[in-house]
């Protein structure tokens, strides 16, 4: 499956989905005018990948600085998708990175992790 690499824009995150290596990453900020335009293709690619990933370990790094409420909804959908795949037996590890002085991103990480039953979720404070 072809990798998905999308450069960050002023209001959308950098996407690096290396499917062959099972390494996925979202990085930066997300407050686009229309979250579905940005997250639609990301979600679709992730869904296809998780259907055919069997037997491989997946690592997903979230290194987000800020996202708006409609992006939060899209992220929640993504976590539900990941948790569903993990329930089916795919080994998925999520790393949620946040700056140590950023309570908002830490709290978002905690919020998302509470809903995940099958994914291994790590809250990781990054160095200053």
């Amino acid at each position, binding site marked *: 499956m072809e990798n998905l690499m999308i450069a960050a824009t002023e209001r959308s995150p950098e996407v690096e989905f290396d499917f062959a290596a099972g390494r996925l990453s979202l990085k930066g900020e997300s*407050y686009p005018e229309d979250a579905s335009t940005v997250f639609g293709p990301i979600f679709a690619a992730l869904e296809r990948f998780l259907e055919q990933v069997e037997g491989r370990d997946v690592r997903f790094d979230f290194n987000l600085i800020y996202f708006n409420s409609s992006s939060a909804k899209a992220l929640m959908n993504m976590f539900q998708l990941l948790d569903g795949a993990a329930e089916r037996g795919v080994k998925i590890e999520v790393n949620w990175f946040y700056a140590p002085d950023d309570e908002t991103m830490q709290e978002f990480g905690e919020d998302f992790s509470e809903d995940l039953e099958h994914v291994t979720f790590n809250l990781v404070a990054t160095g200053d």
Partner: protein
Amino acid sequence: MTIPAPGPEGGNTASGAERLAPHYRTFKHMLDARGILFSFSGYLSEGILYSLGDTLRQKMTLDDTDVTTIKKVFSVFIEQAQNIIRYSAEKVLGTVGKNVELSSGMVIIGTENGKFFIVCANTILEEDVPRLRQRLELLQKMDKDEIKAYYKEQLREAPEEKSRGATIGLIEIARRASEPIEFDFERIESDKFFFCLKVSI
């Protein structure tokens, strides 16, 4: 034709009119006296939202505001500005090389009593008033934990039809506020209201 020579402090203005500098200084002073750091009134676009938001973060960083406060103010600003862009009843649509949709409204950011405040205002249709009022009243009555739980609940829900995400946006705004949100509606036309929302952080 004689061009009047400017006085020691003056500039050229049409005779009889109020002088330019005092006129706009009074206006600026009025904003400054209310603690306003930024104010925007007029047609808002995503480009303006980005630039204003970026400058706001830079200004707060230069003032040594803590990271969490910057995040909260920025987040409320973005949600409010995007609400104006989506829901203002005063819009112009058309094609200027690409499709353009400009929405009229007002966003103000300032400080008072040691807190930041963000006000947004725009015209809305009368038919949208009851639902918006109901949502805001609900949020106004909730405490921090209830707002957080409500946010999580809405995060899992599919978006309401036609809402384009307003529910979660308003909850995000209420969640970042350090005091209950304030809002008001004023009738301005037979089918339109002026809507204001004030959030303190």
